[in-house]
């Protein structure tokens, strides 16, 4: 074990040495090209993340934890090998990853498997909204009001706590799909985690729309953009579904015409969807999930979709999660760590209790009630998007809300994947390794 880890660390060090030496030689020769820097970063991150992922796996953590930590190490706060400009030049991968993750989530939602479980899924979501959200809200509101961190009194503290608590009940489809894809886990915990993650997005988008409208009403002088009414959220959800349904239909038609290499087509389709969603201002996750769901349940091409996703997802995930790690705002932690810790702890307690109650109410097994909560800890894309939106909509106090939310996401992104894998392992749902691959 020690030797295996040492070998991987040696590879990482060699990689680090090569990259740093190239940068040093480049800077001595006066080379300051963004093309050179981003191409080097692309290769470095993929290999560094792969090694990090494999080390994480050796310690029982999911590979994506390794990807994230590798990105964090490579980022500006620790080793500084991958700078912001180079990482920004690789952001194309984000769009691709969102699409791939969404297709995967939708493709996993086989009706025959999920319909009998829909009651359990909805009960858990309601339990999270009814229990976790108020718990986080109470803790955050108390702290914000007592310290006047938002510098706006009762109303502002109320608005800020509301936004933070809604963001707190999101979980990360990327983390869930990443861990499920890697572990090939199958069973009640995996199904519940995936089901709740998929449907939770719909509720969170609606709740956030309501919370934003309410916050704008509570603190009208804050420069809030009133163009985010609650109905906007419903419109967004409806259009997202419509785009996804259309995309699903087109994908089925394409799969029928084109016979080989589904992986390449899926990569293209993921981009198309991400861009259309961006143009229409809709939610790519919902559209992608709908498209994947339609291909899986209304055609015979579901297996090709999933096979293509399995083949193409690893390089995309390695790059996407390492870039996510690279951009983690570690500098926000010292500023707001008290608030962040309060949210992280109350969220953990709230999630655990809510999932336990939800599963019991829907008649689920004790093992499910005990282990499923761990899948809802990870946070990433959607939470970050909502945090940024809050900061943008409410200049001033919204910025502080954003900083707290981002700090919470940093912590949850780091601990979430490992906790989820642990939950799946305790539930006995992780498939044994299919061979160990091959070396040279």
């Amino acid at each position: 074990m020690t030797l295996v880890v040492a070998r991987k660390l040696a590879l990482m060090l060699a990689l680090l040495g090569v990259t740093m030496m190239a940068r040093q030689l480049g800077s001595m020769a006066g080379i300051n090209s963004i093309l050179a820097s981003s191409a080097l970063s692309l290769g470095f991150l993929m290999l560094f993340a792969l090694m990090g992922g494999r080390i994480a796996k050796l310690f029982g953590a999911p590979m994506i934890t390794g990807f994230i930590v590798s990105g964090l190490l490579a980022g500006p706060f620790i080793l500084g090998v991958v700078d912001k400009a180079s990482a920004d030049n690789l952001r194309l991968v984000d769009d691709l990853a969102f699409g791939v993750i969404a297709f995967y989530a939708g493709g996993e939602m086989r009706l025959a498997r999920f319909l009998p479980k829909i009651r359990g899924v909805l009960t858990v979501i309601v339990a999270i909204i009814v229990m976790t959200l108020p718990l986080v809200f109470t803790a955050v509101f108390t702290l914000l009001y007592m310290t006047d961190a938002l510098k706006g009194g009762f109303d502002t503290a109320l608005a800020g706590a509301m936004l933070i608590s809604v963001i707190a009940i999101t979980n990360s489809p990327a983390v869930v799909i990443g861990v499920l894809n890697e572990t090939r886990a199958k069973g009640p915990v995996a199904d519940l985690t995936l089901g709740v993650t998929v449907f939770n997005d719909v509720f969170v988008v609606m709740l956030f729309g309501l919370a934003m409208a309410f916050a704008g009403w509570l603190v009208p002088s804050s420069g809030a953009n009133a163009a985010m009414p609650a109905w906007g959220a419903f419109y967004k959800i409806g259009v997202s579904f419509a785009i996804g349904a259309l995309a699903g239909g087109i994908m089925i038609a394409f799969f029928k015409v084109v016979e080989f290499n589904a992986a390449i087509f899926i990569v293209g389709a993921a981009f198309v969807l991400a861009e259309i969603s961006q143009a229409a201002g809709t939610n790519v996750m919902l559209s992608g999930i709908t498209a994947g769901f339609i291909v899986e349940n209304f055609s015979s091409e579901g297996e090709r979709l999933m096979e293509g996703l399995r083949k193409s997802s690893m390089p995309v995930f390695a790059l996407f999660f390492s870039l996510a790690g690279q951009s983690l705002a570690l500098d926000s932690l010292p500023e707001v760590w008290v608030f962040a810790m309060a949210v992280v702890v109350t969220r953990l307690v709230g999630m655990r209790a809510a999932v336990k109650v939800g599963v019991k109410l829907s008649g689920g097994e004790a093992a499910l009630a005990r282990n499923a909560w761990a899948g809802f800890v990870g946070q990433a894309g959607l939470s970050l998007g909502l945090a940024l939106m809050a900061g943008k909509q409410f200049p001033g106090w919204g910025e502080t809300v954003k900083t707290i939310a981002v700090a919470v996401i940093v912590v949850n992104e780091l601990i979430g994947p490992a906790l989820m894998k642990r939950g799946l392992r305790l539930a006995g749902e992780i498939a044994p390794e299919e061979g160990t691959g091959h070396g040279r």
Partner: protein
Amino acid sequence: MKLAWIVIALLAAGFIGARLAFSKDRLPWRLRDIFLTGWEYILVGAALGPAGFSVIDPAYIETLGPFLALGLGWAGLIFGIQLRWRDVARIDPATLKLAVGQSLVVWLGLLVFFYEAIRLYAPIPLPEALASASVAAAAGAISSPTAISLVAPSFGRTSARAVRTLLMVATLDLAPAVIVVGLTLCFFSVEDGGTFSFQRGMVYLSYSAVTAMAMAAFYRFLGGELLKPEEELTSALGFIALLSGLAFYLRLSPLFLTLLCGAVLANILKPGDNLYKLLYSTEKPFYVTLLIISGLLWQETGVIAWASAGIFVVARIALKTAAIDGAVRFMPKSSRLSAGAGLALSSQGALALAIGINHQLAFTGHAANLVFAVIIISTMVNEMAAPFLIRRYLGRAGK
């Protein structure tokens, strides 16, 4: 927004193209021959880019850089890993001489032509003109085996020997060209209008050799990890991108560096290594995507570009034919081809375009644009004409 539309267009067209470019069985054979190797996808890219309707802004195309570097590295590596010493040593020396000899003759002839054309077109410093001419000539010196292998099945056993030799020559003549491109970037600096320095060249050449060997050893070490297939893909892509990034950082040619590294890997990996399977399995989509990207990067469409390309095409074919005919005439016993075989080597293929892209990324300005335009036009014309010329030659050889 526009950026992703580029990728969408590229991937979709690349995918459909990969499907269609190699299965046009339903078309009448004459029409099928015109579109045999998929050159029309260059036009698709050109229509989207600045040479066409400018649907896609050149500024956005530039942001594809890191992924373009990955593609270039892939092209160099796939050729490099075929250079296993044991296999190269088994090649008939006469064929090897023929391949390298005709490639160098064509390169020299085109170098002179292109140097004059660039000097006429753009008043640029001599070293830069020489570097650009050298790269354009290298792109002209190579032949592609794709068209030959697609046409060959319609000929019987009577032409088998000619087909084998043609394929061998078309595969081997890539090496001198890529080496020339690599050496050009080593000996000519790209900044300040370009300068020639022997000392710099030797230093950069050593960088290339040391980097290629060190990185091949690194990949070999990486391969000691027991990787699953999806991890293997991640490691290969990461490795190629890293190597290309290193090349750009050290102002080396990504094509040359990956070719060198590929050649080292070919001699230290097992013949059935997964890297081979991985590169070959992604060949078609990569090929078509490269065609489209080339079209997108095409900027110069003026009369001079077309005229230069026209002369370039004629000069290239004439030089190829003369070189092979000369070999047949002066070395009749060792030559495996008959007179006129130069016509069958007219196809240029994706590597010519990769050389052009490599140059475009390293150099900027009028001369670089002209070089790229000539490469792209000549590639289209040659890909269009190659199947007919190959058929003609093989028909005669069969008799």
